[in-house]
């Protein structure tokens, strides 16, 4: 199955994903830039993505815990989700998301 991820430069990447993997983990495994500093614990909101409109209703709604963490995202939108809270499944094959500015890792100094 696949997930399509648009980076901050607007380039779309087609990523092979495995069932049960978190979308954050897929993005990180393919080495696209994503901060994800808490490692998937729904505790930091730095894996923030925007979900393509046609996919918004196909995702399970955000839990209260995810909504609480989205409160700490300064660039939140209606289609904001935390990619560590989206688990890949057959129904989500072809999912499209864009990386949010608040998920950008720090510049590498060396």
């Amino acid at each position, binding site marked *: 199955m696949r997930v399509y991820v648009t980076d901050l430069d607007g380039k779309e990447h087609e990523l092979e994903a495995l069932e049960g993997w978190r979308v954050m983990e897929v993005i990180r495994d393919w080495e696209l830039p994503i901060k994800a500093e808490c490692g998937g614990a729904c505790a930091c909101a730095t894996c923030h993505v925007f979900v393509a409109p046609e996919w918004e209703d196909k995702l399970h709604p955000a839990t209260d815990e995810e909504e609480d963490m989205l409160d700490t995202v*300064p660039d939140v939108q209606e289609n904001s989700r935390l990619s560590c809270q989206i688990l890949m499944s057959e129904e989500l094959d072809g999912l499209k998301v864009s990386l949010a500015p608040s998920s950008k890792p720090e510049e590498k100094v060396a």
Partner: protein
Amino acid sequence: MSEREIVTDVVIIGAGPVGLFAVFELGLLDIKCHLIDILDKPGGQCAELYPEKPIYDIPAFPEISGQELTNNLLQQAEPFGPTYHYNQMVTELEKQEDGSYIVKTDDNQTFKCKVVVIAAGGGSFQPKRPPVPEIENFENKSVFYAVRRRDEFRDHDIVIVGGGDSALDWTLNLAEIAKSVTLVHRRDSFRAHTDSVNKMRALVDAGKIKFELGQIANLEGEDGQITAVNIKSKDGEKSLPATRLLPFFGLTMKLGPVADWGLNLHENLINVDTEKFTTSEEGIFAIGDINYYPGKLKLILSGFHEAALMAQAAKKIIHPDQKVVFQYTTSSTSLQKKLGVK
């Protein structure tokens, strides 16, 4: 503020789980530590990001919360009398001619020590900055991420953004002295304590403060002084006259001054060897999530192992004349004496 200098064996930068365990390992070898952390409490990520979340991969603890782990590590370190310095960030690290180090913090605290242990995890926790054009021009003049001096806000038109405890607590607190307070949040639901939310709603109903749904779009003002905060929401845009803005979106980790200390780095992590966990500078060690070596796994348990080996190497620098006898806490009466057990 006057310059103060503390002389000690070891300065540990970061009071997270690995820094705390380093106190224990160094303590068994008769080495005294001072710890410095930018947070107002020990525990690092465990305490700041997930104090209530269970961790399942700490050896011998099938399940333990971030806060419980921190409390246990504090207890384990206690016999060695470490000194904790919170709310401070290390800004400078300088090697002296005699091989010792001078460590300086942004609170004007100076340390002189023989060994520095960097256990800074993902870096220093700093406030999340809203992606608003030119916000940096207003920071610390009319835009603040914390209230350090309450009087800075007296008689001002204040906009507070966020839905957590910091946002709600300061809304209630500053309402007493401000000219006006407007709380802005993206939804009409808050993760702050229910009691604070109820008090806030009561103040809104009484007309003492305002609540607006939305988020910051941009700022108006010049020379560091804001005049209005423009917000956007589903209903469109709105301009809120304001002379102070307090955005509360929590903290995120930044590498910070570590990059300026002349150490060899690997993608923002500090290169170390796996025998001593020493950096490219003798006398500076790096343990836990902040270091890099081939095969590195960012696990708390790896940091514990690194702390133990680092301590052996640090001992040779701090007490070069003392022979180290390897001992177990189960059988060594001298180790048990240090731990205060009978």
